[in-house]
């Protein structure tokens, strides 16, 4: 087939532009419309346009393997001068880069985005802030599409910050609620730590690559990721210097902030204060995946050193287990899924770190659909019963059959049961990392973390499932009668359920693997891989089985007070005391430093200034006394001056004249 998609690739900028139009329209006029939902439909319409266009782009990339289309607009250019800080010149550009992975990301962002937009019409219908909600959500889609399509590092960072801002707005959507406002601030500040380090990383890359040395043209070309369809710094990938290692670690820090990896994960569970739809779109499917996307872009276009890779594997592997354990005990349905998100993001980071960028992105792809599905299903439950407490729910399966099925599909996909989407990608991740353990023995513990997490994942998600849906009736009788949601909410559930089933199977369709060039999809199974697949499936089924035996059919399992696991449970419920530790650091550490700085400022710096000021004030207070206005006193000063002059003339001057031999 030789259909040319060049025209479509050239207008890729329309993808972020469509939601931007919606943002302007809804943001400016949303509150003046006769019905607030109309603004929502505008946003849905434009995100639908963006979705169609990104599907066409993805189709084009699938039919034209490895095609890079870079549209660049240079808006600032310092010419080549041969001297100074930028001997090779320096440019700042904006542009769109359509390549396989950005096409893949476009599909994820816009399909989930469109479905969430649609779902929100039903979920948010009662909310007075609907125009604000849709404006912010559209702005988020603009920023996210811009980030995905960025063709240079600086533009990437720009949109990176913009999605962060949107996340802040949307977490704090219910800003009258103190917990939501503080969660928004927390998310903003914690990710800011990562962002600052990310920026430092950009500076280091700039210093290493741009001003001098191996790639002097990088700055002149505006920090582009690619040139002529190849990574701009492609030949430098793998260069191992301490400075590049540090730069890679900075990128990891940025990704850890955005993707909520240990130790910057604390903000994501609290981000659940936002509307559930926001959690589905931003804090499960897209924005938090931006960190993984950053790692992918870095590894493809800038390169990681082996030390960086080990650090990434360690962070990712540890986070999978760390977050999964906390998901085991919580009773808030959204928080359980949030910890699950952190854990799954750990898988992606793990895969990218082990060198399998495309495998990580594959997991991102499948995870986006089934995690969005889980959130929307949970949203449907919350919408129906008005609580997020799993222990008050129960027996909802009878009333909400579609929601139950959707949640089950999402859960099975998350648990990695074949043939659901999660199975293929998770298996790919495990197999890839396992294949590296032979040459990198240090990867072993993190591989084992990931493997154990398969079991835990299946357990906690089905614990939530059974708690919510099984049994005869809600445990809390005061809950309102549950009902199925309206069609605008049911439709996304159905579509996402379908995607959660087939997203993994898509790899068997010719063309789709072109979006993930170099990934082992469709998988070619060796003996070890088959064994691993069997093992992880068994672990998943085992987890479901344990969950059923403890929580199935409306049972509630209470850990005996005398159980030796009680301290562990408390540890998990208290989130490993990390928030307390951060609070302590914030309160004690920062406050102490601030007090010290305050002391220095108040008494040392100000003291010096005031001391000088007081010295002169006192001096002039005394000196003005000699200015009496009485002529005789002035005469006295004249005479004193005369006497001093005579003293100099008679005693000092001769001494000098003598010394100079005059």
């Amino acid at each position, binding site marked *: 087939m030789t259909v040319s998609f060049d025209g479509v690739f050239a207008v890729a900028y329309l993808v972020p532009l469509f939601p931007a139009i919606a943002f302007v329209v809804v943001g400016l006029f949303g509150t003046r419309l006769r019905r607030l939902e109309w603004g929502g439909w505008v946003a849905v319409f434009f995100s639908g346009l963006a979705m169609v266009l990104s599907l066409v782009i993805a189709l084009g990339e699938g039919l034209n393997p490895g095609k890079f289309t870079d549209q660049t607009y240079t808006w600032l250019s310092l010419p080549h001068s041969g001297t100074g800080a930028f001997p090779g010149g320096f440019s700042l550009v904006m542009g769109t880069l359509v390549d396989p992975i950005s096409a893949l990301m476009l599909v994820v962002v816009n399909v989930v985005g469109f479905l969430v937009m649609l779902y929100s019409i039903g979920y948010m219908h009662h909310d007075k802030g609907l125009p604000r909600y849709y404006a912010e959500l559209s702005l988020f889609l603009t920023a996210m599409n811009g980030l995905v399509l960025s063709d240079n590092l600086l533009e990437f960072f720009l949109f990176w910050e913009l999605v962060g801002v949107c996340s802040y707005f949307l977490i704090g959507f219910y800003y009258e609620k103190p917990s939501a406002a503080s969660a928004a601030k927390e998310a903003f500040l914690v990710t800011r730590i990562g962002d600052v380090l990310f920026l430092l990383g950009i500076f280091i890359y700039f210093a290493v690559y741009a001003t001098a040395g191996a790639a002097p043209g990088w700055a002149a070309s505006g920090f582009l990721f690619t040139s002529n369809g190849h990574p701009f710094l492609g030949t430098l990938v793998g260069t191992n210097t301490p400075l590049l290692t540090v730069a890679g670690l900075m990128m990891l820090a940025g990704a850890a902030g955005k993707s909520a990896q240990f130790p910057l994960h604390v903000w994501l569970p609290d981000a659940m204060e936002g509307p559930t739809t926001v959690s589905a779109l931003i804090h499960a499917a897209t924005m938090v995946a931006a960190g993984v996307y950053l790692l992918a872009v870095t590894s493809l276009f800038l390169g990681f050193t082996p030390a960086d890779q080990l650090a990434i594997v360690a962070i990712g592997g540890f986070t999978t287990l760390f977050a999964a354990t906390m998901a085991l005990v919580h009773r808030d349905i959204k928080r359980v899924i949030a910890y699950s998100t952190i854990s799954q993001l750990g898988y992606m980071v793990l895969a990218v770190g082990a060198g399998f960028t495309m495998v990580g992105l594959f997991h991102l792809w499948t995870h986006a659909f089934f995690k969005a599905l889980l959130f929307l299903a949970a949203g449907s439950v919350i919408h129906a019963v008005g609580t997020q407490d799993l222990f008050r729910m129960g027996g909802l399966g009878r009333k909400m059959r579609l929601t139950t099925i959707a949640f089950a599909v999402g859960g099975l996909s998350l648990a990695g049961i074949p043939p659901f989407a999660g199975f293929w990608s998770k298996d790919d991740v495990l197999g890839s990392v396992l294949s590296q353990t032979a040459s990198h023995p240090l990867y072993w513990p993190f591989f084992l973390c990931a493997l154990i997490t398969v079991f835990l994942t299946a357990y906690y998600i089905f614990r939530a499932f059974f708690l919510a849906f099984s049994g005869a009736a809600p445990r809390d009788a005061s809950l309102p009668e549950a009902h199925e949601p309206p069609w605008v909410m049911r439709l996304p559930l159905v579509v996402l359920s379908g995607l959660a089933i087939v997203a993994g199977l898509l790899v068997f369709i010719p063309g789709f693997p072109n979006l993930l060039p170099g990934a082992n999809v469709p998988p070619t199974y060796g003996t070890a891989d088959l064994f691993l697949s069997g093992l992880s499936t068994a672990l998943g089924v085992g987890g479901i089985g344990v969950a059923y035996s403890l929580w199935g059919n409306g049972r509630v399992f209470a850990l005996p007070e005398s159980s030796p696991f009680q301290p562990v449970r408390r540890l998990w419920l208290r989130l490993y005391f990390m928030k307390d530790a951060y609070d302590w650091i914030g309160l004690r550490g920062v406050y102490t430093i601030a007090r010290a700085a305050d002391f220095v400022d108040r008494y040392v710096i100000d003291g010096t200034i005031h001391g000088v000021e007081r010295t002169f004030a006192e001096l002039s207070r005394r000196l*003005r006394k000699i*200015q*009496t*206005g*009485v*002529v*005789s006193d002035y*005469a*006295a000063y004249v*005479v004193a001056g005369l006497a001093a002059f005579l003293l100099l003339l008679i005693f000092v001057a001769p001494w000098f004249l003598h010394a100079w031999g005059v």
Partner: protein
Amino acid sequence: MTSLPLADLLGLSAALLGIGLFGILTRRNFILLLIAVEISMNAAILNFVIFSAFLSGDAGVNGQAAAVVLVGLAATEVAVGLAIVLALNRQRGSINVAEASSLKL
């Protein structure tokens, strides 16, 4: 005609200047102040005369000429000073310089 050494003569003018300065510093009456200034002035004129006596030719003549001019200037100064005394007396009813201290900050 005296034949005393230069140093002795200068000592006299130094003493007179000192007395004049002492008066300037201690007296508060404007007229007394003027008189003290005149004494100092006379010490300076005396100095010119002394040096001119010890120099021959044009240099010595110039010293005397300077003394003549200074005498004239001193007389002028007394005239202006007394005009100030009158103005001060009319404005404040007193010629005590300690009371005329509106120059201070």
